[in-house]
């Protein structure tokens, strides 16, 4: 009963309000829920110098009260409507989102407009959330084995320009130094309708959604002088390396990051496919070599934030290896995998299945809803990135074409050009804890 291959087509409509707010609608009437998001084009890359971690601390402040919805009111109104909400801070975006029964769409838009218009927070709120954020950093980084590995370890080694190279979760001294004035300045600088996109997905009529968006958002004043930021990196000429103490975990861990070509360039698509050749699960070449064949590593994983970043980013291999092997020796075996693809390239009978899996995984990301508390979160996330970074949410329906067109020759050429020492950074986590000794 294998059905013929079906290509997915996502319905997308979009408009821009007079104040510059972009509005994207993707209706789907199959279940009575809507997911709503507001994405601001500001992430931790552009937080102020001397204020590491500020973009994320600020994200917490967006839940502390706006003009007409005081502290906990936003959360109460969403939860009591039968919905869930959250926010996240990323490299180039910060997002706020809700999934609610569709009869609460207007309420959600009112709430999001209220906090886009005016943040109403005080020193007590800031002190409170600074404490909360410190516990967040402790639970996710300082009190976890391999906490922050590799996402906090690599940037300071790999990059030279502060926006790309600092501690994104924040040094505690910088968090302590943040003031209420910083909060309001950041808000007025970046949290403007012309620096954001509003997304609505699910059970609603786009015309009605657009009308409500206009009603609640259009008279929020734009920011006439959005800052221009330079996140470019100087050319790298040799391999960069670093070491970080692992205070809890018993195994050495290695992160190897190769800097990727710019978004939407021809090579960028090749990076997406080659990443899957190397790292696509247990069939990926690196996993097969290091975990299955040589049995040096316990686990291998990777990240390549292609679709949701808009600045220097890396394809990162994370390797946790057994203590009886050296990190240097492990890297040498990893290098053999890279050399093999540089020298011998890749056959179609390997590349074609990788593309099938790539397509399937893309659909899964679109459907993915953070467990299932946030239906269509993945679709919303990509629509936001295509709108903010590429100016076209319809890219969601064509983006696969670029990846599926990658040829074996391109893969080999990419490996020769980009997977080289002068384009990479390597960080080793070395266990120092007594628990690490056997």
């Amino acid at each position: 009963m294998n059905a013929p291959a079906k290509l997915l087509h996502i319905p997308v409509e979009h408009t821009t309000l007079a104040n510059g707010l972009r509005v994207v609608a993707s209706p789907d009437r199959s279940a009575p829920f809507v997911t709503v998001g507001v994405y601001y084009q500001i992430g931790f890359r552009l937080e102020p110098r001397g204020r590491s971690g500020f973009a994320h601390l600020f994200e917490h402040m967006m839940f502390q009260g706006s003009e007409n919805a005081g502290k906990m009111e936003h959360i109460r109104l969403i939860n009591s409507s039968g919905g869930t909400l959250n926010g996240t801070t990323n490299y180039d975006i910060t997002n706020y989102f809700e999934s609610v029964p569709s009869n609460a769409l207007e309420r959600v838009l009112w709430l999001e407009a209220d906090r886009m218009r005016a943040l109403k927070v005080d020193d007590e709120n800031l002190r409170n959330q600074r404490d909360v954020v410190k516990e967040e950093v402790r639970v996710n980084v300082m009190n976890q084995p391999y906490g922050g590995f590799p996402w906090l370890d690599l940037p300071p080694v790999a990059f030279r320009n502060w926006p790309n190279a600092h501690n994104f979760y924040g040094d505690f001294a910088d968090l302590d130094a943040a003031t209420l004035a910083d909060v309001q300045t950041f808000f007025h600088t970046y949290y403007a309708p012309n620096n954001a996109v509003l997304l609505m997905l699910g059970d609603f009529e786009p015309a009605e959604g657009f009308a409500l968006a206009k009603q609640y958002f259009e008279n929020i004043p734009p920011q006439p002088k959005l800052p221009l930021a330079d996140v470019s990196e100087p050319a790298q000429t040799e391999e960069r390396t670093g070491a970080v103490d692992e205070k809890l975990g018993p195994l050495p861990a290695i992160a190897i990051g190769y800097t990727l070509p710019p978004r939407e360039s021809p090579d960028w698509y090749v990076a997406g496919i080659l990443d899957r050749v190397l790292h696509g699960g247990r069939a990926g070449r690196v996993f097969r070599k290091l975990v299955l064949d040589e049995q040096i590593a316990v686990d291998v994983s990777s990240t390549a934030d292609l679709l949701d970043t808009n600045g220097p980013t890396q394809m990162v291999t994370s390797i946790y290896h057994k203590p009886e092997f050296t990190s240097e020796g492990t890297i040498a075996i990893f290098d053999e995998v890279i050399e093999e693809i540089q020298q011998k390239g890749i056959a179609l009978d390997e590349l074609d299945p990788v593309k099938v899996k790539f397509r399937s995984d893309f659909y899964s990301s679109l459907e993915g809803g953070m467990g299932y508390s946030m239906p269509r979160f993945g679709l919303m996330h990509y629509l936001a990135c295509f709108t903010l970074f590429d100016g076209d949410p319809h890219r969601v329906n064509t983006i696969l074409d670029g990846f599926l067109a990658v040829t074996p020759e391109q893969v080999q050429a990419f490996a020769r050009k980009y997977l080289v020492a002068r384009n990479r950074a390597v960080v080793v986590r070395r266990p120092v804890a007594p628990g690490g000794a056997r």
Partner: protein
Amino acid sequence: MTSSTTSSALRTQPPALGPESPVAWPQRTVRTLSNGLQVVLVESRNFPKISAQLYFRSGNAVVAHSAPGLAEMTATVVRLGTATRPSRLIEEDLRRMGASLGTQAGADSSAISATGLAEFSSGILELMADLARHASFPEDEFERERRQRLEELRIDRTTPGFLASERFRKVLFGAHPYAVVAPTEEQIAAFTRDQLAEFYRKHYVPAESVLVVVGDFSADAMLAEIEKIFGAWNAPKPDVPAFPAPPQQSGRRVYLVHMPGTVQTQVLLGNLSITRRDPDWFSLVLANSIFGGAFHSRLVINIREQKGYTYSPHSGVNALRRQGYFTVRAAVRNDVVAATLTEMFYEMDRMRSLPVTAEELDSARSYITGVFSLGVATQDGLLGQLSTVYLDQLPEGYLENYRDKIRALTAADVLAAARRHFDSANAQIVIVGDRAQVGEQAALFGPVETFDAQGARLA
């Protein structure tokens, strides 16, 4: 979808909710094949994918007294070879079909799950059936995985959340198999290939299994296909041992897991509770939501939003198949461990002493029914909800009646549930942190026993 009733763009009050849309749980095709395999199918055609879960109603609990963790180790090795497919071919077949595979076991069940492109439905189900019926347990693959499991366990023993759960389950469940969260290094070292194969032969059988498939297919055609693929599979029902009862607790006790130098302390407390089949289940879920199960809950407002002690406070009702348990947890600064426990007990006792307000009740009923119903909106959600219903053999109409059951509850029901199930006087308390920093605070709440991260008792 609501229509706007105001013309003022700068309104200061939130818009009222529009009329509610009914939530329709999708039609299900449910059949039991002649070999006993129960098949549950739901069409969900937004994405050209299928997701399938094949469950066996035997997990780590049935072997907890002979070989703890054996079900999990068996599941790990099940995917690594069949009579006709070596491990590498399995992985390549998966990739060719755009599929991901998982094999895992918990306390109550073992599972083979896969998701992939609908155009390869048959191939994906055939591969699942091959793993369910013809796994070959290659010795070399097993030895490699055994070593991996040892290393994972060593990492777990440096993870505060794991150490808290492990000690808590030991304390709460005593001789009951749910006491075991993970095997020891010695137990992992003692597993044999034959033990894995034996567990597989006994427990991977159609008579105690459920196959749930959600996705882009026609249910009739899918059912016919499944009969073809799984119909000829036969094996007897396994014997499942009776489990000893968990201990009765009397009075609060504190179990401190000492991790020297930690910059934060994990607090986990709670008591034995009920399963989804208990008549109190719905009122307990509601009480938990008001207490600490939602962002807008008393515990979160208190120790996060007012006091800033923690990032992620949470309470939950954990429904294992034979016995549930109630937990309250938070990772807090070292100097507020006692203050956190005081607030946790204060909020538990408040739930037990006074009825919740009408506003809290109303808000929580909407929240619980809304979030539960979100399950209809994704393939993963449907799969999760259906799996719970059929694996736990919940009554017909459980999904459909959930909203009405929650909505019928009163403040008196919540009060009664809190009194019965938030056992504050006999709560067991686990603290994972540096005893030099938190030991005195812990001792304020009951007699303290101290352990190291390996589980050895410390003087």
